[in-house]
């Protein structure tokens, strides 16, 4: 196959998906290589998400109806959570475990497997209202900004000819002018007392290294870059009411990104505030956030389920693409990718953070239908235990995550 090369739109950092890693994937790595996390700000209404029965023989609950044809490819988890305090502010621990703003599972994975990709991880958001400012957190607890505009993600993944010309210009002009900087540094060094003459040594070494790297980047800048046959709309669907539209595009772009390999770890945050959706031509009775505070009113719950089902409809489009697309080794992209769908909010109506509805797709797991745990039992597993199983499946050697130190391998592997 042709060795693919990518350029970053920022024009500076360029990495090659190394031939070696592709070769390695065909020979020794058999487990999944990609991870995608999807989280909603306003939870998932549990009664319409959890089947009444456990195991594989269940009748599909209404929210999951759009996913019915992929039943064999995912597992529903009920009763898992992080045993964290309640409250809206704690939503943000979805990927972090017990404490908000701590090292999130996707970043742990990115730090281990993302390094060889052009983007160690990509974070996106659809329907931005006022939700959490970040879903993914670095080891240092820094929340990672999320891409809101599909056009921005597209430009990163598939830089246009003009983008690449700009990159080339910046590299060329930058490299040639480095000579003057080097000369300036040498002049400065000469003016130093001899005892301090070596203080710029590291500076010179680093400058030379950067110069060399610019040369390497220039050498491959005009090699062809895959351009997908994909048409973005002429506007960015960033108003909150266009959430489903944005969501569907991000799913398309994520599937393309996994296929062309500029990134292996991605997340999509589904935010929500007062936007009133029109679904199947009918405007709902209140905004998304208002509906999530349904107070068990049946009419409001019905509208809320309509929204959540629409999210699942978008998701099913993503799963479909992953199932159809093949990796270089011939297996489906879905087998090569673990997709985690969940939330940090167990019951938005009460701001309860217990019992978080969770789905896991693909990844070569043996899927079990509906796995139910008793979240009121102190010995019951944590959501973090599921994250441990996910990380282990991706080949990470890890035995602890936040407050979890077991795994779910006994139930799910």
């Amino acid at each position, binding site marked *: 196959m042709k060795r693919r090369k990518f350029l970053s739109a920022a024009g500076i950092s360029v990495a090659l998906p190394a031939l070696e890693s592709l070769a390695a994937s065909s020979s020794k790595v058999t487990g999944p290589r990609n991870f995608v996390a999807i989280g909603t700000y306003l939870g998932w209404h549990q009664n319409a998400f959890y089947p009444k029965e456990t195991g594989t023989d269940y009748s599909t609950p209404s929210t999951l109806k759009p996913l019915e044809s992929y039943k064999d490819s995912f597992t529903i988890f009920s009763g898992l959570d992080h045993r964290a305090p309640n409250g809206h502010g704690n939503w943000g621990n979805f990927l972090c475990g017990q404490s908000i*703003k701590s090292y999130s599972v996707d970043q742990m994975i990115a730090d281990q497997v993302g390094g060889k990709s052009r983007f160690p991880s990509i974070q996106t958001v659809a329907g931005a209202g*006022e939700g959490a400012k970040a879903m993914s957190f670095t080891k240092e607890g*820094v929340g990672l900004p999320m891409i809101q505009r599909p056009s921005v993600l597209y430009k990163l993944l598939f830089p246009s000819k003009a983008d690449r010309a700009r990159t080339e210009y910046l590299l060329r002009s930058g490299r040639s*002018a480095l000579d003057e900087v080097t000369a*300036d540094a040498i002049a400065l060094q000469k003016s130093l007392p001899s005892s301090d003459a070596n203080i710029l040594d590291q500076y010179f070494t680093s400058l030379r290294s*950067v110069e060399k790297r610019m040369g390497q980047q220039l050498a491959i800048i005009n090699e062809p870059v895959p351009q997908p046959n994909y048409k973005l709309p002429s506007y*960015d669907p*960033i108003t909150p009411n266009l959430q489903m539209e944005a969501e569907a595009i991000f799913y398309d772009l994520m599937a393309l990104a996994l296929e062309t390999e500029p990134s292996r770890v991605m997340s999509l945050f589904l935010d929500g505030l007062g936007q009133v959706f029109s679904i199947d031509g009918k405007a709902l009775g209140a905004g998304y956030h208002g509906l999530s505070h349904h107070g068990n009113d049946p009419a409001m719950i019905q*509208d809320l389920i309509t929204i959540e089902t629409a999210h699942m409809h978008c998701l099913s489009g993503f799963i479909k693409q992953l199932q159809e697309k093949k990796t270089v080794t011939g297996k489906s992209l879905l087998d090569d990718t673990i997709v985690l769908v969940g939330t940090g909010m167990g019951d938005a109506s009460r701001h309860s953070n217990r019992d978080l509805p969770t789905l896991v797709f693909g990844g070569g797991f043996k899927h079990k239908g509906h796995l139910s745990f008793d979240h009121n039992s102190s010995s019951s597993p944590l959501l973090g235990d599921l994250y441990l199983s996910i990380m282990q499946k991706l080949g990470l050697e890890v035995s602890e995550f936040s407050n979890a130190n077991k795994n779910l391998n006994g139930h799910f592997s």
Partner: protein
Amino acid sequence: MRLAMGSFIAGAFLLPACIFASPIPEKPYALIERYCLDCHDSDTQKGEVNLETESIDWSAKDNQHLWERVHKVVNEGLMPPENKKQPTSSEREELSRWLDSTLLQHIPIAITPPRRLSNTEYQTTIQKLFEIHDFKLPVGFPPDAKYHGFNNIASGLTISPPLMEAYQNVASQLADSLYPPARETPKVKTLVAGPDDLVLSFSAATVHGDALRLVSRGNDSVMRSCTWPSRMEVNRSGTYRITVSASKFKPIKDEPMELEIRAREVAASDRTHVGSFRFLKTFEFSKESAESVTFEADLYEGQTLMFRWKNAETTHNPSEVSAHMRAWFERDKRMLAAWQHTVYPGQGVKERSGGLGSLRGLNGWNIVKQHLNDPDLDLSNATMDHPKTVALLKVLRTISGGRFNLADAICHYYHENGPALQLHKVSMEGPLKLVDSPQDKQRYAKRKRLFGNVAEEKTEEYFEAALHKFLVRAFRGPVAQETIDRYSRIGTTHWKEGHSFEEGMHLVLRKILVSPRFLFRSIPTKDTQQHQLAARLSYFLKGSPPDSTLLKLADSGQLSDPTVLKKEALRLMPKDARHDIMIKSFTGQWLETDRLGEIMPDPKFKFDASKIGMARLEVEYFFAAMLKENRPLADFIDPDFTYATPIFAKDVYKIDRKLKGRHDSIQRVNLSQGGRVGGLLGQSAIMLTTANGVDTQPVLRGAWVLENIIGMPPPEPPQDVPALTPDIRGATTPRELLAAHTKEASCAGCHKRIDPVGFVLENYDPVGRWREVWPKSKKKIDPTGVLPAGTDLKDVTELKAWLVKNIDHFGLCLSEKLMTYATGRIPNYAERKELESIVSLNIDREKGFQDLLLDLIQSKTFRN
């Protein structure tokens, strides 16, 4: 004279000893031989310490450090170990005296080493230089290493290729922000939005066939009253021709309906106040059939139009909702009864199950409507003075009672029955011509401020003026003509190659920002001593590069004048815990409160992130007050005040008396001296950072007090001691646990110094609350301890009393930390001597903390 040093490549080669070496006199040599060389001769070199030499080469920094250590262990009685033969006290004194004089003789006050900007300094430097006050280092920027507890120490500030690349990326972004790449001329397009392309937010708007109805005039937040196109975003700032068609729906008044049009950012928060968006036009509509209006307006990149019915019947405004409903209820008993039944369905004034939240929007209105349509609707309670009416009008005033929820439901009455203002179509044609956005104008103005008010032309004269102005600030001092020429040449060459003015400037900026003259400080070139002092003073007190006043004083050579220096130090003195970086940065590193973000207290302590934040603020407010009020140093240990929110003071410090002010606003809290609460040792943040969030570790707390308060840091564990797992069976309290630990002879020497200090603080749990028993064993805590000098302590109050009585220890410790932070190096022997005399003068003359800081700034240690 400064001697050539082999110190940077420590021990890699030896200079011929005969040149610099000075011999050890006979008497001390005999003492060293008798008491030290059994273990520390060149064969054994225990702990990698070799003292077998007849003369000392003082030009080697390693030797300076070695003999300083020897002085410390001799002076403090740490060596020889207990199981070896001991010198008499006069022998110990003699050796100590010789070491003191010889160290002073051979170790001069050092010179502040050149170093690159730390990440924090780099960030503030860019903020100041480019006037971007919220500039933050990008995620993933390579972090600084901490060295001796501080992240701005010269030896820790290395430069690596990834860091260089990160500098280059930041430079490119900054250049983009001032000189963005040229863009193509856009084509004129017409975008059209029908009712289905307009945002429905909360209950502000609904769609009925070809019309979108607006019903609320609320101006609190746009999301409750406005609509705006969702697919019509301006991507080039310009003049656009806008056409809007609208009509009245079931008006009840003759007066026209006023449609207010503003420009909003598509990506702005929907909670934004209506008035925050730029007003464009108001149009009056008087007909019930669609009418079109057309106007031209400037719209900027990222914006779209926003519509509100300005004189609508209903509203969400806090003061008006309740009055509006009162008037309605007064004229319409059925409406009142329907609402009463909806909100309070039972006998009493009890809200419906599910709460007011479930009455939001259409759902609430549908329930009211069911009651309205009920022919048997019970009107018997529908009076204005009925408790249900009173309660209803009250919740319509209170935000938590659901004013918004109910107002949203009321909107749906108007959506169905009118009056409403209907929008039919919005179209936007353009850009008819391009205009500068406010951001563009700000950018041009900033360019003038940074580079001078010179015509932006591709000439050498431009650079002559522009670079002269900019480089003096970027390089923080005078800039030689050849340097200006060099950077000017980068730009002029680029222009000659056919590039635009902007591209030339872009390139020059990118290069200036990776020059060592920008990235490094304290570069000891000729003629820059004054400017180095200016930078040192400014980075120390303000965390940022020198301002124009400092630079002018440095230019004229006046800054080193002690009177001027003092005046400037006073001017730059940190005052405000919230805004002065130095306070957060210095206390964070000195007291290790930087670590608080990593500590997650066990949920059983009920100590969440906001309390951790408050704990850190307490330290910072306290430090700021100590400085601003010039309090005596003893107040660091036993003050009569602290800072806390009332809720925090009650929860953590058990201060039960009523404090003034909001329960969550930070304020000064008076304390009585001599107690447990108050001062660094009892502060929650300190107890947090010296524990791990779960349990306490006396070793950590002991070592922390010795290092950061008393200034007798325990020596690093020798490298040849293997890590060990002590036998801890049967130990049920931390004290027993550590007793087992210190049975190991190789640990005992130091741990006997460390642990007893830590025990004194055992009464503080891992978050700083007072406790009397250990949580697991339920045994009563024994807080007795011993200081390294042998003083017995009953509990923490005695430790505080001892520290106050011997405040010189703390004073010297604090001074050393301040000077480490200020100069980027650990004070050497001679410098510590200088600091000692400054501290004892401060104490003798009953001066305060600010005086100390001013005197330190006048010291040779700081000025060199």
